[in-house]
């Protein structure tokens, strides 16, 4: 173990901005992608449900 305290860990030898800046942005981007995927899935399911319920919806460019 390299660190003697949490402060030291968070301080990252003075490079906190760079190290945590990288890790935080990566975490945000990954979380954002997962969130977008969920939204996409919800929309796609809704679209499919509507199609099943009401038949071919208007503005439908897909011939399947």
């Amino acid at each position: 173990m390299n660190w003697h305290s949490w402060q030291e860990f968070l301080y990252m030898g003075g490079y906190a901005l760079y190290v945590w800046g990288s890790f935080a942005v990566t975490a945000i981007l990954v979380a954002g992608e997962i969130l977008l995927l969920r939204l996409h899935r919800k929309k796609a399911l809704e679209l499919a449900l509507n199609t099943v319920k009401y038949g071919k919806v208007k503005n439908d460019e897909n011939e399947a």
Partner: protein
Amino acid sequence: MINRFNKYRYASPATFYRLAGRLIPWFYGAAALFCVAGLYIGLFLAPTDFQQSEAYRIIFIHVPAAWMSMFIYVVMACWAALGLAFNTRMSFMMASALAPTGAMLTFVSLWTGALWGKPTWGAWWVWDARLTSELILFFLYLGFMALQSAIDDPRRADRAGALIALVGVVNVPIIYFSVRWWNTLHQGASVSMTKAPSMASIMLVGMLVMALAAWMYTIAAALSRARCIILERERNAQWVAQMLEAEA
């Protein structure tokens, strides 16, 4: 509807949809596990670097992201080639499903490269051969996605995207070579990011584990995006109706 695809059972969107649905949680789980293990190795076990102090810990994200971003482009081109050769719709969908994740990881590697470069080289951005090639790779991803989103007809979008992905993958080695050539002429040998002389083996292990995490995450994200694309495109198909009724 399904009978037509019996020959390529796993190439059928219906089969793929179910199979992917079962696999996705496992890949997300594996990604989380590898990520925790990799971060533990990278942040707690790996020793402080002699020259770069703690700033080097960025490479535990930067290098796996850069590896994956290049790997994903090649995989995307392989799916594109498969699609064009055998006319399997699933291959095209996999190619489009991979692109956004690849672009995201390319951006991550650029961002972390800049944050690593500032304390190490004293500049946010250096026109180093690797960084420049990564930037161009980002443009290639953006071009692929922009082309696909500009085309309304899914069949044409699939094929046009596949062709530009193949053209891109043929060009990537040429671009990389030319950028390296340009770089050596203009500023001498560049500082290498990954080839730190004091690279301890525990650091390499940490990077590899993080790369595995990125790999598993990419598979999970691409599979779930492919599922969304299938639902959108096949919403008029019989099996979608049956599946949705069974679930309701």
